[in-house]
């Protein structure tokens, strides 16, 4: 079947087989390299995309369900102020997510801060729990998200909270 899909602000027509998942067409047909699908069960979080503005596991979305939707991958946000701040915050907190989960963690943090500019520790851990990679320790992850939130709030609202 042919699927019309907007990926990173570009309208694409892709061929999908029945049983294909969104992650399959993004990786195989559109060569989106930031996706590192691993478990294919919605557990590892390495295939995160924003689908119509919501963070989803692209391995759990049947390709036909993505018809007509707007997909945004890490490539679209890589140069954004949000992503730059989150990466800088990781660096400042001496938290270095590995190459396998870095993009997913950035997307998860961006999603959290967009919904809640001042998340508490529990919310941060709950959100980052969606990326099951044990490379970074939880304390520095929480610190990093706090720093990222501060930078974001300063930029967006010209204030540094907390």
């Amino acid at each position, binding site marked *: 079947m042919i699927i019309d899909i907007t990926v990173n602000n570009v309208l694409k027509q892709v061929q999908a087989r029945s049983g294909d998942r969104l992650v399959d067409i993004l990786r195989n047909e559109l060569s989106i*390299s930031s996706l*590192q699908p*691993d*478990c*294919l*069960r919605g*557990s*590892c979080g390495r295939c995160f995309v924003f689908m119509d503005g919501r963070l989803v596991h692209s391995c759990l979305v049947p390709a036909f369900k993505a018809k007509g939707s707007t997909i945004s991958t890490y490539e679209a946000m890589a140069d954004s102020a949000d992503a730059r701040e989150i990466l800088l915050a990781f660096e400042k907190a*001496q*938290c*270095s997510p*590995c*190459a*396998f*989960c870095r993009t997913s963690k950035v997307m998860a943090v961006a999603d959290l801060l967009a919904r809640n500019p001042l998340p508490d520790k*529990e919310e941060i*851990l*709950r959100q*980052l*729990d969606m990326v*099951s*990679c*044990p*490379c*970074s*320790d*939880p*304390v*520095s*992850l929480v610190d990093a998200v706090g720093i990222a939130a501060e930078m974001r709030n300063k930029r967006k609202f010209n204030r540094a909270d907390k």
Partner: protein
Amino acid sequence: MNGRERYETLPILGALRFPGMVHASTIRSTVARAKNFSLPREQLPTGYIRVIAADLAREETDLAYADDFPLFAVDSVSYKGQALGLIIGPDPGLCDELAKAVRAEYDEEEPEKEWESFSSSQIACRYAIEYGNVDFAFSKSPRKERSVYRNGIFDHDYSEPMGALANWEYDKMAIYCASQWPDQVRKAVAAAVKVSEVDIVVRPTHLGRSLDGRLWFPSYVACQAAIAAKLCRKPVKILYTREEDFLYTLKQARSAVTIKSASDDDGRLQALDIKIIINIGVFNPNAQEIVHQAAAAVTGIYSCPAIRIEAYAIRSNILPLGAMGSIGATHAFFSIEAHLNHLAKLAGKTPAEIKTINMLSKGFSNFGVHPLDSDIPFAKFHKKLEMISDYRRKYASYELVKKRDSGSRDGIIRGIALTVGYQTGRSFSGKLSMNAYNVETTLDRNLDLVISTQSSIASENLRAMWRATAAAALSIPESSVHFASPNSDTTLPCGPLTLSRGASIVNKLIERSCRAIQKKRFRESLPIVAKAQTRISRDSALSSGASLGGMLFDSASWCGTAVEIEIDRLSGEPQPIAVWMVIDAGRIVKKELALSSLRSSIISALNLCISRDFDPEKPEGQYLSHGQLRLANLPFIGIEFMDSERTTVSKGLGELPFLTIPAAFHSALTQALGVEPRQLPLSGSEILRLLESQ
């Protein structure tokens, strides 16, 4: 730069693609032991081929990864999931489907599952040592105890599933894979495709978390990929699915440690008779190292005048099993700590009291030679841990609750325990390639330092530590320190980067080579190159107690660990509430990074204690259901460093959580339950059964 490429992060195997590249999926045996297997010829779609051992007979290849472990099964099958061949083609998904659909025919045989009472043909490696008159001590001692401690099979949960890619680069073959030991990959692949080692280039990919599970297995997959690439003259990638990785790749070995002790009325040890049996599954090339490490760790930090140790690595018809975290020492250390707790209970003493009276002290040694030149810092660690964990109050409270409501599931079921342990840099391997580390540093005209070593496959945290060491030695900013790509054609061969020990050796070498540059810096023109290498030649046979005794506390880092747990009243699952660690690992180069690495290791070590035991007999269905701590459910973790300012020497610390946490966790579990479990991990239902048995 000498033409070397600098790098920040290594490529990810899963993301690598080359023009004309094809994928290979493994055809696996569905039985554990069989003879005369045959694979029916099946029509494959155009562009897909099947490769089995018989097809490779005419090729210039060596199908024996080791004498008793072929790359592809030839006549017989030795474990469920063994590679019978490959399906090679352009679509990885279709390759997987075709490989799964292959139905081999076998003359099935009864697999050797038994390993605790084994036959002589199952022995892969044996090590025995005796010091003092053990039998006499047993005949004279008033108290004799015997207990068996077991641990389960545990999955490493690698960051990326196992795989390898073989590509043609002009006249050489390039191997891309995530291995802790790139030099071993090069040697193995060269042997498999029968070429010189210089014709093979290993380009390491991002390693992620490996926990000593990627010491040799990646080279086995790389050999298969290389043979496939040689056969079809195209780049070939093998990348296991996550499920395949879980079911068929290397796991932590299962072990049983039997400790017979003789002690006097005060609980002072008079003799230890210990038998260690480690089930290495079908094969493990590092069996000897694992056995030696276990034997060295099994006396813990305790003194005993008569010791007999017999240690075995046993083969069985299950998947390959091996090291995790501390290369065999975890099982042994957990066993002796559990046994001391058992003796404490029998003697009516607290664990700390019985441990104190049995502690090795300055001037004494277990094997009559190499007496300790300082006391074991047990009291210091104990005191500090008691203070930061509020141990005494909690221990007394939980004892009180237990005595009032013995066996009850109504109140809180909690336990807390302390243990003191150590990590050493000892290596018993006689293989020089395993102990030789090389570092080359170049200070160029821009005052940028380039560190060239195969060990730079390490995590960003480790590289940051090495960067800080080099920057401090040369008084240059850390941003001026770079790493050369760890490719085997541009870096000198290096031993394995294990969880912790290789890292501290490389740190010393970097410091040494930077100091050499610093001496020449204002006398010679830039660039200046300096090399440093280490070569630890050991007697691989470890024939006497003297050779073992001399290495027991070789470059030891010390730590005290306290673990507090709570048992879920409904499910019986043990949940860690808090972990405290006090560590003396010499100079800490980067405190924040060390803390961060330790916290990650602590979580992994706790997972060892709470995850479900992997059952190799019925592996299906266990995938992603083996239980892991989630971020949202983590215990409090407190870490303190002791005496890190007093010394300039850095020692390894990454293995400390793996050594001490299982022992402390088991001890806390014992307090919580009121009965001594003899194995780790324990499932919720087993814990409930123990509670109800009271």
